[in-house]
């Protein structure tokens, strides 16, 4: 009913990749992230880059869920937050030391011992697993309700947006146990490493960079697998897939859950990189900002989405410093231009140029790829 047959503009052919070549590409990215960036950037800028890479990790999931699966999730903040809070809860407990309450609980709370739902997070393994599994579990629960009842398209988008608003409101309301609007701040250590030490900050950056590459590899495998093809099929015609004997709800659920896990990991790594997690990272606005990066770079293209996310995050830092008002206009324009006039994002520009060049080189019409908008 809504948009199961959205005539998409992301007409990027599903290329049959060659894993050896892909490995070369990843190697180049690895050199950039592990070699060039640490050399070229000051500690401060490297810390910023770490933060951008976290948003890029969310974008990888969005690329999968939205670009490939057509699920416009305006609620990634929920999963980012779950991962972030799971990590921060553990680090706060560890900072406080055995037997002590985290600082904010002593200030705002009345409890004399950790609330029951905090206690498991004292265990580092549990907390680490929870950063990814908790968001996935929540996504699986939500998704299986939502998709099975065929809530889709704009309905799904609005619902996911409302959920992220509700989650943020709830977190803020529980000040004694969640830190309220302040969030969990002043995180000192990261599994025994002092986060104040620039060397350790660098290490955190490397962990984040490695995690991003890992997620990209994972997403790439999924996109090029049979499942990835099926996901695109579900995006373009859910009913049709149903008549082929698949349950599209399950297909969507996998993408949604994986994207949630990726956002959770991003949130978890955001905590040591920035030293804070708060509801400000969770509400409607941050959730939609996660989407814009992917949209600008190219929602259906993995590399495009990642670069878009990094680029938009960088532009926000750079532009909002000098021209806060102009940044809002710019951000609005980005949404409009990227989605209305360049729906495939910048990645589609690259594709267009390449096709044109190929066509000129061979003096033949380019391979029959439909360009532009249908209908």
């Amino acid at each position, binding site marked *: 009913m809504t948009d199961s047959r959205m005539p998409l503009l992301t007409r990027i052919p599903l290329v049959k990749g060659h894993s050896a070549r892909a490995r070369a590409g990843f190697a180049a990215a690895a050199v950039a992230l592990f070699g060039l960036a640490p050399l070229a950037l000051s500690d401060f800028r490297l810390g910023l880059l770490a933060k951008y890479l976290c948003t890029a990790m969310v974008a990888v999931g969005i690329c999968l869920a939205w670009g490939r699966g057509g699920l416009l999730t305006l609620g990634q903040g929920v999963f980012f937050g779950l991962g972030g809070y799971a990590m921060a809860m553990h680090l706060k407990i560890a900072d406080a030391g055995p037997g002590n309450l985290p600082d904010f609980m002593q200030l705002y709370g009345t409890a004399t011992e950790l609330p029951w739902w905090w206690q498991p997070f004292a265990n580092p393994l549990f907390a680490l697993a929870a950063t990814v599994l908790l968001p996935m579990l929540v996504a699986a629960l939500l998704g299986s309700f939502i998709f099975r009842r065929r809530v889709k398209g704009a309905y799904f988008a609005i619902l996911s947006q409302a959920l992220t608003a509700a989650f943020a409101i709830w977190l803020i309301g529980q000040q004694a146990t969640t830190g309220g609007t302040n969030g969990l701040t002043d995180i000192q250590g990261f599994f025994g490493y002092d986060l104040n030490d620039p060397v350790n900050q660098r290490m955190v950056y490397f962990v984040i960079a490695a995690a991003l590459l890992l997620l990209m590899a994972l997403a790439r495998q999924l996109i090029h697998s049979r499942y990835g093809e099926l996901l695109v099929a579900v995006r373009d015609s859910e009913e049709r897939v149903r*008549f082929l004997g698949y349950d599209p709800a399950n297909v969507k659920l996998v993408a949604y859950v994986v994207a949630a896990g990726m956002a959770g990991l991003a949130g978890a790594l955001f905590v040591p990189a920035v030293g804070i997690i708060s509801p400000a990272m969770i509400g409607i606005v941050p959730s939609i900002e996660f989407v814009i990066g992917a949209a600008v770079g190219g929602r259906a293209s993995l590399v495009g989405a990642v670069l878009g996310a990094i680029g938009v995050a960088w532009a926000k830092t750079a532009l909002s410093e000098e021209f806060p008002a102009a940044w809002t206009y710019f951000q609005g324009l980005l949404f409009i231009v990227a989605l209305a006039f360049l729906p495939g994002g910048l990645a589609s520009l690259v594709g267009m140029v390449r096709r044109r060049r190929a066509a000129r080189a061979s003096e033949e019409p380019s391979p029959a790829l439909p360009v532009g908008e249908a209908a």
Partner: protein
Amino acid sequence: MSELSGLRIRQLRVSFDGFKAVDGVDLDVQPGDLRFLIGPNGAGKTTLVDAVTGLVKAEGSVLFGDEELLGRSVHKIARSGIGRTFQTATVFEELTVLQNLDIAAGAGRGMLTMLRRRKDVPESVARALETVGLAELADSPAGTLAHGQKQWLEIGMLLVQDVRLLLLDEPVAGMSHDERQATGELLERISEERTVVVIEHDMDFMRSFARSVSVLHAGKVLSEGTVAEVQADRRVQEVYLGHAAAGDVLDTAAAPAAVQEA
């Protein structure tokens, strides 16, 4: 190839907010039949197919072989061996012909197979490519196919899906004469191994290929039999064939709609 099964529909009723789109239909399709469903617009043909495939809720009974279909979800009905096409060809335009067929072949695949890449062309897919004559175009995105080729691809998808009953909704609408002929022959070949039901407005096409015909009118079966029997039925002539021009009008009306939606 699995055993042939027939379709046995009893007292099927579908209503939308009080409007009875299908009003007590009894219909038997023998295994291996090539049955045409005809009738004026609004007769309930498509709704009947919707009901059989689980898209709309219905009362009554639909037996396929000896399995009751009513009450099952769409994808479970599909898995029990029933496939359908739509008036507008719905193939996955951004995927290649090969990928389209591969997806159709894969509903039973396990998790691990799904998460891996397609290494080669499954045999059933290769065969279907030949059968529907799209082997040359295997790597083209389905969106670039001509209208008729999309319909063939859809039929090919039903073949690899290994359905035992094909329900085709106006498969030749918008096709050229030659394409219709080719499609008809394709359906004849398919019906040797499977049961085929075709909704069609094109009377010439029906006359050339139908083994049996059911005429629907106002949600009920008006007449049933061979082409000749049905044509001879006075009631049918009255509501439908009687208006000599009606068939032509319907044909021309169907064409632009199909083109527009392609």
